[in-house]
């Protein structure tokens, strides 16, 4: 494509693109997010495209593969615009019908529509599906309008307008003021005001004239994929945000640090950067403003700790990804000892929004001290797994029950874990806590980058604490003593408890150790690592006590504390469990009560799940 020389050329190019697109009567957006990808969306997209071509629909129907739409539970998804009709759980067999009925005749296929599990009502439009209806999708909504590999789509959707405005109508300090007034706080976890960071980096003196802005896309929390979906589905918005930030700060170079476990993200990002380069939106004299800026992609090697700012910078520099003390702020001496500003993917994606909408409209969403929206990845035992974007201040209950559709199969809710492995577990009676940076911190958890794991009665809270601790123990870089040695000893203690060897003294020791690790660790990883332990002890101490004093795991998760037995009265001798037992621990004649050999039993629970007569008892 030709270089875009000025804001006026950008606008006329946008106009032309929109006119070209007027020919399309229908646009089918097939979700290409991680969830749908795993469910064969690529094949569906290819089939749809071929079928549309064969039927001569090329000029009137556009088939587009986009980033994540959010409703992963119902994938593969497709939205048919302009009516906004949502088709869910599409299989390759559905494709001919979609082309014939919907694309050619304009009919709706009822079988592919979403039906509300509460009342069985069939819902045609995506916006009316309860999962979407309560969300405020300021960022995520663009995902389904854009093919991430097409800068034309982004520009047609209003892209780079904020950049043109910033470069030609605003002074750098004016932009920082706007971001400050908008109240933008870092979406990476700590919620630090973005404008304060920008301001100190703007003020910092670069000896050789080089300053950096970085984008942290090293999203490593188990079960979280918000940043991935944004960067993969709408890379240009993040690039535009970084460009505006760089202009405000006076930065000359940028890096996007993305983990290598996200190959599609890296691919889309590189395509997007090349396109932006070609269009003159990156490089020298951007939009004839005299502003020069360039972005490189740095692919991480897989260490969770590299999401920590100083470790991330060390990794980009080619050194071991280890944190260092930050008494001299990275705004003054960061990457390659030059002034550096680091923000998370979602933070950068918010920037064009603020410039386009104006601060008042932006700050009207959310709460007083946490403005805007936040994307959460709602996972665990919940009906509607997916990415949800909600205004800050919505309560956990609304997110879990109204949007998430509650807990499957009528089981009871036990806890929700927010903030990734370093977050805390929040119990039922705190579900009316509004989700914002400060309130989550008050209840012993944190916003984190936006993981939200829902747990039901079948989850053992001690085991959950063990799981997260084990993860962090693995991911600790090992530099400082409290994190390296402390987490290991905490894990030993918690393993003792889950395996029935724990004592009450150990529980006190665990608490004491957790507090010291929190107080003395070098970086954020160690300082927040005890959160899962401290919050589960705080809210679920009775479960710890049960494990220690009664050798009982009420959720039936901790293998050392449970056993399976067969009730001879209820057993019909159907041999189903006997055949399924992987270790041959079950014996018995046909139509005679069976018996489990406790020495051989591996406690996998297969017999318990299979038995149709409830004859297998878990103790």
């Amino acid at each position, binding site marked *: 494509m030709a270089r875009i020389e000025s804001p006026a050329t950008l606008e006329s190019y946008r106009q032309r693109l929109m006119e070209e697109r007027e020919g399309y009567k229908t646009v089918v957006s097939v979700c290409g997010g991680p969830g749908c990808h795993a469910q064969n969306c690529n094949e569906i997209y290819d089939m749809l495209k071929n079928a549309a071509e064969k039927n001569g629909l090329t000029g009137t129907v556009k088939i587009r593969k986009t980033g994540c739409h959010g409703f992963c539970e119902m994938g593969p998804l497709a939205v048919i615009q302009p009516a906004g009709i949502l088709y869910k759980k599409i299989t390759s067999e559905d494709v001919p019908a979609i082309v014939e009925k919907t694309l050619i005749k304009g009919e709706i296929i009822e079988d592919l529509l979403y039906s509300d599990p509460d009342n069985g009502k069939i819902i045609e439009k995506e916006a009316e599906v309860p999962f979407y209806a309560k969300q405020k999708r300021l960022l995520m909504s663009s995902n389904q309008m854009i093919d991430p590999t097409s800068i034309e789509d982004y520009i047609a959707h209003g892209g780079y307008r904020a950049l043109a405005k910033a470069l030609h109508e605003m002074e750098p300090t004016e932009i920082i003021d706007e971001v400050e007034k908008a109240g933008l706080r870092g979406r990476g976890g700590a919620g630090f005001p973005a404008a304060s960071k920008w301001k100190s980096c703007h003020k910092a003196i670069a000896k050789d004239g080089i300053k950096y802005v970085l984008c942290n896309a090293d999203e490593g929390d188990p079960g979280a994929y918000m940043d991935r979906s944004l960067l993969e589905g709408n890379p240009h918005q993040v690039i535009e945000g970084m460009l505006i930030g760089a202009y405000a700060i006076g930065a000359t170079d940028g890096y996007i640090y993305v983990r290598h476990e996200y190959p599609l993200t890296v691919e889309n990002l590189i395509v997007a950067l090349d396109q932006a380069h070609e269009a003159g939106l990156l490089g020298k004299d951007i939009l004839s403003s005299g502003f020069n800026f360039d972005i490189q992609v740095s692919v991480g090697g897989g*260490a969770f700790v590299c999401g920590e700012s100083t470790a991330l910078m060390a990794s980009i520099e080619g050194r*071991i990804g280890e944190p*260092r*003390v930050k*008494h*001299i702020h990275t705004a003054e001496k960061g990457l390659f000892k030059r002034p550096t500003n680091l923000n998370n993917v979602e933070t950068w994606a918010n920037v064009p929004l603020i410039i386009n909408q104006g601060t008042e409209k932006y700050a009207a969403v959310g709460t007083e001290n946490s403005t805007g929206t936040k994307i959460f990845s709602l996972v665990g035992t919940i009906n509607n797994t997916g990415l949800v974007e909600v205004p800050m201040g919505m309560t956990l209950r609304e997110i879990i029950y109204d949007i998430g559709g509650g807990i499957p199969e009528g089981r009871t809710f036990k806890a929700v874990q927010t903030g990734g492995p370093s977050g805390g577990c929040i119990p039922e009676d705190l579900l009316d806590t509004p989700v914002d940076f400060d309130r989550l911190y008050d209840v012993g958890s944190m916003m984190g980058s936006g993981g939200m794991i829902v747990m039901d009665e079948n989850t053992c809270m001690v085991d959950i604490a063990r799981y997260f601790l084990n993860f962090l*123990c*693995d*991911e*600790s*870089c*090992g*530099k*400082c*003593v*409290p994190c*390296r*040695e*402390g987490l*290991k*000893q905490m894990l*030993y203690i918690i393993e003792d408890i889950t395996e029935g060897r724990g004592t009450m*003294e150990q529980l006190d*020791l665990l608490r*004491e*150790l957790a507090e*010291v690790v929190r*107080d*003395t*660790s*070098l970086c954020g990883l160690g300082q927040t690592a005890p959160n899962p332990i401290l919050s589960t002890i705080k809210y679920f101490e009775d479960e710890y006590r049960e494990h220690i004093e009664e050798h009982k795991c009420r959720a039936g998760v901790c293998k050392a504390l449970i056993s399976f037995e067969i009730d001879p009265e209820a057993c019909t001798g159907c041999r189903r469990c006997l055949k399924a037992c992987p270790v041959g621990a079950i014996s018995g004649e046909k139509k005679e009560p069976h018996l489990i050999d406790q020495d051989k039993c591996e406690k996998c629970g297969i017999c318990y799940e299979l038995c149709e007569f409830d004859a297998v008892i878990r103790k």
Partner: protein
Amino acid sequence: MVRFILDGQSVEAEEGWTILETAKYYGIDIPTLCYHEGLSTYSACRICSVEIIRGGRSRLSASCSYPVQEGIEVRTNSERVRRARKILIELLLSSCPNSRTLQCLASEYGVTKIRFRAEDRGCILCGLCVRMCEEQMQAGAIGFVYRGVGREVAMPFHQRSDICRECGACLYICPVCELPCGGPLQPGQLCNACLDTVQLDPFPCRD
């Protein structure tokens, strides 16, 4: 000059000094393991943590890297600091019982029992040897390998390299190479030989 409160006294320090340097200047002892004047600051052992009160908020921070600031209050030996140091000593001794430095610290801080699972790994990963080799000996023959609990000091690929001149500087600076007074100890054992005397002389074994 920067003015602040150090253990209840108003003190002055040069701009750019750390809390540890200032405390040394005023004769206040703060234990250190990974710090050495001649080497870059590493801030990993956290034993030099002190309580810093700033803007009404109290937190622990490693004094070896914390630059002095106007108006802060620093407590080098408060209850919270001692509690944290005791746990850190206990943690270190549970993985490295045969260090005279650590065993002396245990006596000094009244650590009389190790409540953690003990295993002898013979190294506290303070990194003094690595920095000594690289910064003072200009060799860089040793470095850290692996991550987290598996971290260790080694030569590249665990092979003897020609870069090592066998100068012995790493041995000289190692805080773990000298056996405790009580002789070789099993993991979990404490020397505590001078536990009774620490009341009379607070630092019997240290220079």
